[in-house]
């Protein structure tokens, strides 16, 4: 949790809020890749469409 608060503070100090959507998307996809261990990503994406 401290990671997110530090990241938020960082963006506030640097006034770089536009980075937030990019980061969120990347962290979500990154998290999915880690959770699904790479090879399992494909079936998951197929069900999306």
């Amino acid at each position, binding site marked *: 949790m401290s990671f997110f608060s530090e990241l938020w503070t960082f963006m506030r100090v640097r006034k770089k809020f536009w980075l937030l959507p*990019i980061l969120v998307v990347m962290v979500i996809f990154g998290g999915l890749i880690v959770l699904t261990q790479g090879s399992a990503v494909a079936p998951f994406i197929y069900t999306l469409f």
Partner: protein
Amino acid sequence: MTAILGISSYYHDSAAALLIDGELVAAAQEERFTRKKHDARFPENAISYVLQEAGLQLSDVDHVAFYDKPFLKFERLLETYVANAPKGFGSFRIAMPVWLREKLFQKSLLLKELKKLGQGTIKPENLLFAEHHYSHAASAYYPSPFDEAVVLTLDGVGEWATTTVAIGKGENLEILKEIHFPHSLGLLYSAFTYYTGFKVNSGEYKVMGLAPYGEPRFKNLILDKLVDLKEDGSYRLDQSYFNYSTGLTMTNDKFSDLFGAPVRKPETDRLEQFHMDIAASVQAVTEEIVLRLTRSLAKEYDIPNLCMAGGVALNCVANGKVLRDQSFQNIWIQPAAGDAGGSVGAAYAAWHGELGNPRKAAQPGKDRMKGSYLGPVFEQADIEKRLSEAGAVFSTLSEDEVISKTVDALEDGKAVGWFNGRMEFGPRALGGRSILGDPRSETMQRTLNLKVKYRESFRPFAPSVLREDVSEWFDFDEDSPYMLMVDTVKPEHRREMTAEENELFGIEKLNVKRSDIPAITHVDYSARIQTVHEDTNPRYHQLISAFKQRTGCPIVVNTSFNVRGEPIVCTPEDAFRCFMGTDIEYLVVGNSVLMKEEQDPKLAEDYKQKYELD
């Protein structure tokens, strides 16, 4: 007591440094322990060593300081990718998973790695982060012998900054100006290192060594097309010629077309006069930029002292020119000017900057780096035990006998391994882990390059000279204990070239004797000077004094104790392995002396193939 542990890691040259009550007590690079050159992994061995040196556990450490700010670096990466999208997707695809898995969470990663050492933990609030260039600036200013100085840092890139100007006064150090990525003098030099077929981040020395064989005939082309250089030394690079922002190479086809030749492939393409001219040209441009910067800074701030750090500050040819230019009266350069030195800077930044501790007044002419002898030392009994276990045949002699026998070996033209006292911190061997030779020998440079170091024959060697005698032999009369200044051999020790010899080109110049000390005289009569001081390395000073007494020459050839691509040796076992695997004929480890002919030849490894080309 307050102990601060400085760490640099995860990019290249991981290292650890320990500051106790503001005094630097130990520092070492991880590569020396893991035997992997430029090792970037978390420096667990280096940390264990620096703590052990001070008799501390991690739990005794008050603060840990890291040399870089990961969020800020990530911001730079993202902004660069967004600015160049969709170009750069290939690099993005490779970089992002590493960031999302590890680097973005560096704080927790560091805490976890520290915990794994099994010596207690560090509270998250005691883990501090200094900006990359602030760490460099701190490593240049705080250990320097000045109470006030202009601090110039130049390197490839940190977070955003690539060049910074700071002012240090007492315990205060403030960065006042910055040049930001992608405009970078370090990356410009690295681009040419790549173009001439050498490895980026380690081959820059070779480009510098190659430069005197060439003519700077591309200097104006570089200044016209690649670099927009202003009068005050500030600059911008035309990014249409480079590929490092978004690609996986340093330069692109437009760059190759500009110079009329493709990137040299080291495995198949020979080094030609063209590459030497390219090296001479980028060296000349670098010197021009550094000199414009230092001249304008001297004028602007009117402070007589200059401190420098960052990878470009290891360009000792440029440093020598800054010194001779005399814009600043005094110059001090951090011996570990590359990223390893960031660990020292981060620790100092925490001690003075974050904790606000006052800085003791400087002693004129005395810095706080202890000669850079900040690494492991081995007791004589331990040395003998380790050598015996390695199967070495050695005799242990008295101090005087060691010196006199070593001088005999040098006089006989032997390559001598010299393992003495604490290991150096920084890329240079300074008489702690060195290979020595007789500089008067005409064959020494070739022998050392081809039979001992297994490296390119064009590469020059450096002299270690007694401080009190330096001005007798070189056009130089300053302290240069860290081998970071280049100057010329005095005219009376030079040998004039015949008209025929003057006609020689490039590498052909190499075989011509140029002075009374040919082994350390480069083709332009220059030498990368190390002055040896009695107070920081008395034993090395004693050895060179004895050599002088015998031969009249107060100089020895000094090159690092390793082969091409290998980290400098750390332990007596490393030294023995290198001794057995190369044509080093005589080895001194503490008071133990080893002759090659007495060793068991079965212990020799195929050392030449063991390390990758650097």
